[in-house]
């Protein structure tokens, strides 16, 4: 008798887990399925749940239309430049922040948190006005500069806690052994932090690859990949948007699966801890 409730609990647990997994996977399946479906399987009152007649028509259309390469290349260039620039800007600064006094560190982090609170639409507005004056609209440079706005605080968060976890004693030991500040940085600190920097960099790459709001404000004619998807959403191009969305998602899924080993929640919480 006493084992019954426990058994019941276990059954509920299994049902719950299966249900959650289903809800997580089903949309992704639908996306890929739609991109391979014939119109009469999708555009009816009762769409089929399984793929009966796979077709490559939409994929061929998307790949041969010539609208894919431009946005793809722009997204790739912008994301990569954002990642490199963010690392160059943030890594040295977060090292210093992690080594300052508690008070300065707390202030700096609170300022970063505040910048994250301000609505993106509010920052994008003056930025687009200024970029119009500087002729930076529709350029990769402009978009990289804009993407950095969101990514710099984000990366600083991760890296301040990465550098903070490297004990100061190690550097002091290096000083005693006759290292200069530069040498201690190069030989001791950077090798220990390199994994954290790499993970943070990949995150930044992903965020920039996915970014939509700044791209929407700052692009008039040249599109990034998310904007291309949005364009087809507005036009109601059911199949094109499935194919484009799949292309947008593929690199992301690969990187996330590779990174899962390193996905640690303290990267999300950063230097703000309970």
């Amino acid at each position, binding site marked *: 008798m006493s084992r019954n409730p426990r058994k019941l609990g276990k059954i509920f*647990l299994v049902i*719950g*887990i299966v249900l*959650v*997994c289903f*809800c*997580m*996977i089903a*949309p*992704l399946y*639908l*996306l890929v399925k739609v991109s391979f479906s014939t119109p009469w399987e999708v555009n*009816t*009152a009762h769409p089929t*749940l399984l793929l009966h007649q796979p077709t490559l028509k939409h994929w061929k259309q998307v790949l041969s239309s010539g609208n894919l390469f431009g946005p793809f290349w722009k997204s790739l260039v912008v994301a990569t430049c954002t990642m490199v620039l963010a690392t160059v*800007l943030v890594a*040295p*600064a*977060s090292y*210093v*922040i992690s080594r300052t006094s508690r008070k300065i560190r*707390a202030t700096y982090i609170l*300022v970063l948190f505040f*910048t*994250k*609170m*301000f*609505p993106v*639409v*509010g*920052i994008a*507005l*003056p*930025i687009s006005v200024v970029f119009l004056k500087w002729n930076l609209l529709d350029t990769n440079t402009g978009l990289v500069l804009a993407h950095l*706005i969101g990514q*710099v*605080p984000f990366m600083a968060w991760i890296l301040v806690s990465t550098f903070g976890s490297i004990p100061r004693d190690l550097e002091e030991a290096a000083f005693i052994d006759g290292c200069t*500040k*530069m040498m201690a940085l190069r030989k001791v600190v950077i090798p220990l932090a390199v994994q954290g920097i790499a993970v943070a960099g990949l995150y930044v790459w992903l965020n920039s*690859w996915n970014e939509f*709001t700044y791209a929407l404000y700052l692009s008039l004619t040249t599109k990034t990949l*998310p904007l291309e*998807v*949005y364009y087809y*959403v507005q036009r109601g191009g059911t199949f094109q*948007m*499935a194919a484009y*969305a*799949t292309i*947008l*998602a593929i690199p*992301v*899924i690969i990187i*996330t699966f590779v990174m*899962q080993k390193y*996905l640690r*929640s303290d990267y*999300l919480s950063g230097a*703000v801890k*309970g």
Partner: protein
Amino acid sequence: MIKCLRKYWLEILLIIPMTIYILGFTILPIFQSIVMSFRSEGNMGLTMNNYHMLFNKPQFLESIGNTMFVTVVSLCYQLVLALLIALALKQSFKGRGIVRAIVLMPMGIPTMVSGVMALYVFGTSGYLNEILFRLHLVSTPINWTVGGMRSLFVIVLADTWKVLPTLVLLLLAGLESIPETVYEAAKIDGASSVLTFFHVTLPLLKPSITMSILFRAVDAFRIFELPQILVGSSIPFVATYSYEEYSAGNLAISAASSTVLLVMILLFTWFYMKVIDRGEGFNVT
């Protein structure tokens, strides 16, 4: 001063580029945006005209209501769901690794893509209607994104799909940091599992929960992409409304509405820290 410079020249050199960038490209635009919201054309002084105009527009008032509703509902819903999943993932069972990988999968999916998926699921001839139809729950298809309460829930669900992994990860880390000995002590004292959950797990999890709520709330208030894709301008949110005004060329109004959004976020954060949390769970180290 000179001495300080000589001693810390390297540190200062390292920190200056990022500081300049943040001042120039984030802090300055924020202030420009706020100032812009108090300016009106042909007038050098500061006025409240834009705000008067803004609060006389029914669409804007509606957008405030929608934003608050979606924020509160999605916060509660996501937090409970994420906590349940985190508790389940803490148990050891066969295939836990796979379940973890599946649950964390949407984390990497671009918001844009999750919006597209939601369009397929919640469309009038979409897959949710089809499943409900096959289960004989409905006979005529339901129009999910036409407006009203239903569409707000669609946005909550689409948002949940996207952010659940992050929340699960945060709460799971919190759960795993609770030492096993505490549970053993509770067991020896004869506490039931329900009692243990409410008196041991939840209080010890409070820092993680507080952090999750603050992070999520800020993002939920600013929700932009999903409404933009799913419902367009038919159901306004403060952020999408601000974009509408921007694309119509009313820059000052757009600035005013994003400033209103900032005030909403600051008020919520202040309220949460002072009234609900009272500085218990949130420390800056």
